[in-house]
Protein backbone atom coordinates (compact mmCIF):
# COMPACT_ATOMS: atom_id res chain seq x y z
CA UNK A 1 0.00 0.00 0.00
CA UNK A 2 1.32 3.41 -0.82
CA UNK A 3 0.82 5.93 1.95
CA UNK A 4 1.68 9.54 1.31
CA UNK A 5 1.35 10.71 4.85
CA UNK A 6 1.27 8.77 8.08
CA UNK A 7 -1.53 9.90 10.34
CA UNK A 8 -0.85 9.61 14.07
CA UNK A 9 -3.29 10.33 16.89
CA UNK A 10 -2.20 11.02 20.42
CA UNK A 11 -4.46 10.95 23.48
CA UNK A 12 -2.63 12.54 26.39
CA UNK A 13 -3.92 14.78 29.16
CA UNK A 14 -0.55 16.17 30.28
CA UNK A 15 0.60 19.27 28.45
CA UNK A 16 4.33 18.60 28.81
CA UNK A 17 3.95 15.05 27.59
CA UNK A 18 2.04 16.28 24.58
CA UNK A 19 4.91 18.61 23.73
CA UNK A 20 7.35 15.77 24.11
CA UNK A 21 5.49 13.46 21.72
CA UNK A 22 5.08 16.26 19.24
CA UNK A 23 8.80 16.90 19.09
CA UNK A 24 9.56 13.17 18.92
CA UNK A 25 7.35 12.74 15.86
CA UNK A 26 8.84 15.84 14.24
CA UNK A 27 12.08 13.91 13.93
CA UNK A 28 10.51 11.08 11.91
CA UNK A 29 11.76 10.44 8.40
CA UNK A 30 8.21 9.68 7.25
CA UNK A 31 5.88 12.55 6.36
CA UNK A 32 3.31 12.59 9.10
CA UNK A 33 0.35 14.42 10.50
CA UNK A 34 -0.39 14.45 14.22
CA UNK A 35 -3.83 14.88 15.74
CA UNK A 36 -3.90 15.51 19.48
CA UNK A 37 -6.80 14.74 21.83
CA UNK A 38 -6.53 15.97 25.38
CA UNK A 39 -8.49 13.17 27.03
CA UNK A 40 -10.24 9.86 26.40
CA UNK A 41 -13.67 11.31 25.76
CA UNK A 42 -12.49 13.72 23.10
CA UNK A 43 -10.46 10.90 21.55
CA UNK A 44 -13.57 8.74 21.18
CA UNK A 45 -15.52 11.71 19.78
CA UNK A 46 -12.79 12.44 17.31
CA UNK A 47 -12.45 8.83 16.12
CA UNK A 48 -16.19 8.32 15.65
CA UNK A 49 -16.26 10.86 12.85
CA UNK A 50 -12.67 10.64 11.59
CA UNK A 51 -12.55 9.79 7.89
CA UNK A 52 -10.21 8.35 6.83
CA UNK A 53 -9.17 6.82 10.12
CA UNK A 54 -5.66 7.50 11.39
CA UNK A 55 -3.04 4.76 11.06
CA UNK A 56 -1.81 4.59 14.62
CA UNK A 57 -2.97 5.74 18.05
CA UNK A 58 -0.74 6.49 21.02
CA UNK A 59 -2.90 6.21 24.09
CA UNK A 60 -2.05 7.20 27.65
CA UNK A 61 -3.29 4.59 30.11
CA UNK A 62 -4.01 7.10 32.87
CA UNK A 63 -6.39 9.86 31.95
CA UNK A 64 -9.29 11.51 33.74
CA UNK A 65 -12.82 10.99 32.39
CA UNK A 66 -12.26 7.94 30.26
CA UNK A 67 -8.95 6.19 30.79
CA UNK A 68 -6.81 4.40 28.20
CA UNK A 69 -8.04 0.93 29.13
CA UNK A 70 -11.68 1.96 28.70
CA UNK A 71 -10.93 3.54 25.34
CA UNK A 72 -9.00 0.44 24.25
CA UNK A 73 -11.85 -1.92 25.15
CA UNK A 74 -14.38 0.24 23.37
CA UNK A 75 -12.24 0.53 20.25
CA UNK A 76 -11.48 -3.17 20.04
CA UNK A 77 -15.16 -4.06 20.43
CA UNK A 78 -15.89 -2.13 17.23
CA UNK A 79 -14.76 -3.60 13.91
CA UNK A 80 -14.49 -0.10 12.45
CA UNK A 81 -11.14 0.16 14.21
CA UNK A 82 -9.71 -3.22 13.17
CA UNK A 83 -6.97 -1.64 11.09
CA UNK A 84 -5.98 0.97 13.65
CA UNK A 85 -2.76 0.10 15.47
CA UNK A 86 -3.00 0.95 19.14
CA UNK A 87 0.03 1.72 21.31
CA UNK A 88 -0.66 2.11 25.02
CA UNK A 89 1.90 3.69 27.30
CA UNK A 90 2.17 4.28 31.00
CA UNK A 91 4.69 5.11 33.67
CA UNK A 92 3.04 2.55 35.98
CA UNK A 93 5.36 -0.20 37.03
CA UNK A 94 2.79 -2.84 37.96
CA UNK A 95 3.82 -6.31 36.76
CA UNK A 96 1.57 -8.06 34.27
CA UNK A 97 0.05 -4.83 33.02
CA UNK A 98 1.64 -5.37 29.61
CA UNK A 99 -0.03 -8.76 29.19
CA UNK A 100 -3.37 -7.37 30.29
CA UNK A 101 -3.23 -4.55 27.77
CA UNK A 102 -2.13 -6.83 24.91
CA UNK A 103 -4.91 -9.32 25.69
CA UNK A 104 -7.40 -6.47 25.40
CA UNK A 105 -6.14 -5.96 21.87
CA UNK A 106 -3.45 -3.29 22.04
CA UNK A 107 -0.65 -3.91 19.54
CA UNK A 108 2.05 -2.14 21.46
CA UNK A 109 2.68 -1.68 25.15
CA UNK A 110 5.25 0.88 26.30
CA UNK A 111 6.42 1.14 29.88
CA UNK A 112 7.76 4.68 29.77
CA UNK A 113 11.46 4.78 30.59
CA UNK A 114 12.67 7.69 32.73
CA UNK A 115 15.19 8.73 30.13
CA UNK A 116 13.46 10.94 27.49
CA UNK A 117 15.95 9.90 24.81
CA UNK A 118 15.13 6.26 25.42
CA UNK A 119 11.42 7.02 25.07
CA UNK A 120 11.99 8.95 21.89
CA UNK A 121 13.90 6.00 20.47
CA UNK A 122 11.04 3.64 21.34
CA UNK A 123 8.40 5.91 19.79
CA UNK A 124 10.40 6.20 16.58
CA UNK A 125 10.93 2.46 16.43
CA UNK A 126 7.22 1.77 16.98
CA UNK A 127 6.27 4.08 14.12
CA UNK A 128 8.79 2.48 11.77
CA UNK A 129 7.76 -1.06 12.66
CA UNK A 130 4.11 -0.16 12.23
CA UNK A 131 5.07 1.34 8.88
CA UNK A 132 6.28 -2.08 7.68
CA UNK A 133 2.92 -3.63 8.58
CA UNK A 134 1.13 -0.83 6.74
CA UNK A 135 3.19 -0.70 3.57
CA UNK A 136 3.49 -4.48 3.21
CA UNK A 137 -0.15 -5.05 4.13
CA UNK A 138 0.86 -7.55 6.84
CA UNK A 139 -1.86 -8.93 9.09
CA UNK A 140 -2.03 -7.04 12.36
CA UNK A 141 -3.66 -9.98 14.09
CA UNK A 142 -0.32 -11.04 15.53
CA UNK A 143 1.23 -7.59 15.78
CA UNK A 144 2.37 -7.40 19.38
CA UNK A 145 5.23 -5.49 20.90
CA UNK A 146 6.12 -4.91 24.51
CA UNK A 147 8.68 -2.42 25.79
Amino acid at each position, binding site marked *: *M*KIDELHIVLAEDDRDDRMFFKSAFKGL*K*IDNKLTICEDGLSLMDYLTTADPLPHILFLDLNMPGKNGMECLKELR*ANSRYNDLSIAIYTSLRSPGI*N*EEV*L*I*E*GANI*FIRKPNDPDALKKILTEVV*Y*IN*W*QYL*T*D*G*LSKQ*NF*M*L*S*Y
Partner: protein
Amino acid sequence: MNIHLKYNIEQICRVILQEKLGALNIEYSTITSGSICFPKGLSAEKFTELTGELSKYGMEIVTDQKEILVQKIKSLITCMLIPDNSMPLVKISSFLADNLNENYRTLSQIFSDVCHMSLESFIILRKTELVKQLLLNENLSLTEISHKMQYSSVAHLSNQFKNSTGLSPSTFQKISTNKRKYKKVTN
Protein backbone atom coordinates in the same frame (compact mmCIF):
# COMPACT_ATOMS: atom_id res chain seq x y z
CA MET B 1 -17.13 -20.05 15.91
CA ASN B 2 -13.65 -19.08 14.77
CA ILE B 3 -11.59 -20.88 12.19
CA HIS B 4 -7.93 -20.23 11.59
CA LEU B 5 -6.51 -20.18 8.11
CA LYS B 6 -3.15 -20.43 6.54
CA TYR B 7 -2.50 -19.41 3.00
CA ASN B 8 0.10 -19.07 0.33
CA ILE B 9 0.43 -15.42 -0.59
CA GLU B 10 2.53 -16.14 -3.69
CA GLN B 11 -0.15 -18.42 -5.06
CA ILE B 12 -2.99 -16.04 -4.27
CA CYS B 13 -1.22 -13.22 -6.08
CA ARG B 14 -0.40 -15.38 -9.08
CA VAL B 15 -4.04 -16.51 -9.45
CA ILE B 16 -5.34 -12.94 -9.15
CA LEU B 17 -2.86 -11.74 -11.76
CA GLN B 18 -3.69 -14.55 -14.18
CA GLU B 19 -7.40 -13.82 -13.83
CA LYS B 20 -7.05 -10.07 -14.25
CA LEU B 21 -4.65 -10.27 -17.18
CA GLY B 22 -6.97 -12.77 -18.82
CA ALA B 23 -10.03 -10.61 -18.27
CA LEU B 24 -8.29 -7.58 -19.74
CA ASN B 25 -7.04 -9.62 -22.70
CA ILE B 26 -3.43 -8.76 -22.06
CA GLU B 27 -0.78 -11.06 -23.43
CA TYR B 28 2.01 -11.99 -21.02
CA SER B 29 4.63 -14.67 -20.91
CA THR B 30 5.60 -15.25 -17.30
CA ILE B 31 4.64 -14.26 -13.79
CA THR B 32 7.44 -14.66 -11.30
CA SER B 33 7.38 -13.38 -7.74
CA GLY B 34 6.60 -9.72 -8.06
CA SER B 35 7.07 -9.28 -11.82
CA ILE B 36 5.24 -9.96 -15.07
CA CYS B 37 6.78 -10.16 -18.51
CA PHE B 38 4.98 -8.65 -21.51
CA PRO B 39 6.83 -9.75 -24.67
CA LYS B 40 4.68 -7.49 -26.86
CA GLY B 41 4.72 -4.55 -24.48
CA LEU B 42 1.74 -2.91 -22.83
CA SER B 43 -0.34 -0.03 -24.20
CA ALA B 44 -0.88 3.03 -22.03
CA GLU B 45 -4.58 2.29 -21.96
CA LYS B 46 -4.09 -1.30 -20.77
CA PHE B 47 -1.53 -0.11 -18.25
CA THR B 48 -4.11 2.23 -16.70
CA GLU B 49 -6.80 -0.46 -16.71
CA LEU B 50 -4.47 -2.95 -15.08
CA THR B 51 -3.35 -0.43 -12.46
CA GLY B 52 -6.99 0.20 -11.56
CA GLU B 53 -7.90 -3.49 -11.36
CA LEU B 54 -4.90 -4.38 -9.22
CA SER B 55 -5.36 -1.53 -6.77
CA LYS B 56 -8.52 -3.25 -5.51
CA TYR B 57 -6.27 -6.00 -4.20
CA GLY B 58 -3.73 -3.66 -2.67
CA MET B 59 -1.32 -4.35 -5.57
CA GLU B 60 0.48 -1.51 -7.24
CA ILE B 61 2.76 -1.24 -10.20
CA VAL B 62 6.12 -0.03 -9.00
CA THR B 63 7.91 2.48 -11.18
CA ASP B 64 10.60 4.04 -9.00
CA GLN B 65 13.94 2.22 -9.46
CA LYS B 66 14.76 2.10 -5.78
CA GLU B 67 11.26 0.84 -5.00
CA ILE B 68 11.66 -1.87 -7.64
CA LEU B 69 14.88 -3.04 -6.04
CA VAL B 70 13.30 -3.02 -2.58
CA GLN B 71 10.35 -5.06 -3.84
CA LYS B 72 12.75 -7.57 -5.35
CA ILE B 73 14.61 -7.80 -2.05
CA LYS B 74 11.35 -8.34 -0.19
CA SER B 75 10.20 -11.05 -2.60
CA LEU B 76 13.50 -12.86 -2.25
CA ILE B 77 13.31 -12.64 1.53
CA THR B 78 9.77 -14.04 1.45
CA CYS B 79 10.92 -17.00 -0.68
CA MET B 80 13.94 -17.57 1.50
CA LEU B 81 11.90 -17.62 4.69
CA ILE B 82 9.23 -20.12 3.59
CA PRO B 83 9.24 -22.77 6.32
CA ASP B 84 10.84 -26.06 5.32
CA ASN B 85 12.29 -24.56 2.20
CA SER B 86 14.78 -26.72 0.45
CA MET B 87 17.15 -23.91 -0.33
CA PRO B 88 20.76 -24.46 0.56
CA LEU B 89 21.75 -22.95 3.84
CA VAL B 90 23.45 -19.76 2.72
CA LYS B 91 23.61 -16.43 4.44
CA ILE B 92 20.75 -14.19 3.40
CA SER B 93 23.24 -11.43 2.63
CA SER B 94 25.06 -13.46 -0.01
CA PHE B 95 21.80 -14.91 -1.30
CA LEU B 96 20.48 -11.40 -1.97
CA ALA B 97 23.74 -10.12 -3.39
CA ASP B 98 24.07 -13.10 -5.77
CA ASN B 99 20.48 -12.96 -6.96
CA LEU B 100 20.39 -9.24 -7.51
CA ASN B 101 23.93 -8.84 -8.77
CA GLU B 102 24.63 -5.97 -6.46
CA ASN B 103 26.86 -5.78 -3.43
CA TYR B 104 25.19 -6.23 -0.10
CA ARG B 105 26.20 -2.85 1.29
CA THR B 106 24.48 -1.06 -1.57
CA LEU B 107 21.38 -3.20 -1.19
CA SER B 108 21.18 -2.62 2.50
CA GLN B 109 21.72 1.14 2.10
CA ILE B 110 18.93 1.49 -0.46
CA PHE B 111 16.68 -0.72 1.64
CA SER B 112 16.99 1.42 4.76
CA ASP B 113 16.56 4.63 2.75
CA VAL B 114 13.26 3.42 1.36
CA CYS B 115 11.91 1.39 4.28
CA HIS B 116 13.21 3.32 7.29
CA MET B 117 14.45 0.08 8.79
CA SER B 118 17.66 -1.86 8.36
CA LEU B 119 17.53 -4.92 6.14
CA GLU B 120 18.61 -7.08 9.08
CA SER B 121 15.79 -5.82 11.30
CA PHE B 122 13.34 -6.34 8.47
CA ILE B 123 14.41 -9.95 7.98
CA ILE B 124 14.07 -10.60 11.71
CA LEU B 125 10.64 -8.93 11.74
CA ARG B 126 9.41 -11.12 8.88
CA LYS B 127 10.95 -14.24 10.34
CA THR B 128 9.35 -13.56 13.72
CA GLU B 129 5.96 -13.10 12.04
CA LEU B 130 6.28 -16.56 10.53
CA VAL B 131 7.31 -18.04 13.86
CA LYS B 132 4.18 -16.48 15.39
CA GLN B 133 1.99 -18.11 12.75
CA LEU B 134 3.60 -21.48 13.28
CA LEU B 135 3.22 -21.14 17.04
CA LEU B 136 -0.46 -20.30 16.86
CA ASN B 137 -1.82 -22.14 13.86
CA GLU B 138 0.11 -25.36 13.71
CA ASN B 139 0.66 -26.10 17.35
CA LEU B 140 4.30 -26.95 16.79
CA SER B 141 6.92 -27.09 19.51
CA LEU B 142 9.71 -24.53 19.58
CA THR B 143 12.17 -27.24 18.62
CA GLU B 144 10.15 -28.12 15.52
CA ILE B 145 9.79 -24.46 14.61
CA SER B 146 13.48 -23.76 15.03
CA HIS B 147 14.24 -26.59 12.55
CA LYS B 148 11.59 -25.45 10.09
CA MET B 149 12.84 -21.89 10.17
CA GLN B 150 16.51 -22.87 10.11
CA TYR B 151 17.49 -21.40 13.45
CA SER B 152 20.72 -22.78 14.82
CA SER B 153 19.06 -23.62 18.15
CA VAL B 154 15.91 -23.13 20.23
CA ALA B 155 17.81 -20.64 22.38
CA HIS B 156 18.65 -18.57 19.32
CA LEU B 157 15.01 -18.60 18.25
CA SER B 158 13.77 -17.61 21.73
CA ASN B 159 16.31 -14.82 22.09
CA GLN B 160 15.55 -13.36 18.71
CA PHE B 161 11.82 -13.54 19.40
CA LYS B 162 12.21 -11.84 22.74
CA ASN B 163 14.48 -9.13 21.33
CA SER B 164 12.15 -8.39 18.50
CA THR B 165 8.79 -8.43 20.34
CA GLY B 166 9.69 -7.87 23.99
CA LEU B 167 7.86 -11.11 24.78
CA SER B 168 9.00 -14.69 25.14
CA PRO B 169 7.40 -17.14 22.69
CA SER B 170 5.40 -18.73 25.51
CA THR B 171 4.10 -15.38 26.79
CA PHE B 172 3.13 -14.47 23.24
CA GLN B 173 1.28 -17.77 22.93
CA LYS B 174 -0.47 -17.23 26.25
CA ILE B 175 -1.60 -13.71 25.32
CA SER B 176 -2.88 -14.86 21.92
CA THR B 177 -4.83 -17.75 23.41
CA ASN B 178 -6.43 -15.47 25.97
CA LYS B 179 -7.22 -12.98 23.25
CA ARG B 180 -8.98 -15.62 21.18
CA LYS B 181 -10.95 -16.91 24.15
CA TYR B 182 -11.90 -13.36 25.03
CA LYS B 183 -13.07 -12.69 21.48
CA LYS B 184 -15.21 -15.81 21.58
CA VAL B 185 -16.90 -14.67 24.79
CA THR B 186 -17.56 -11.16 23.58
CA ASN B 187 -18.69 -12.14 20.06
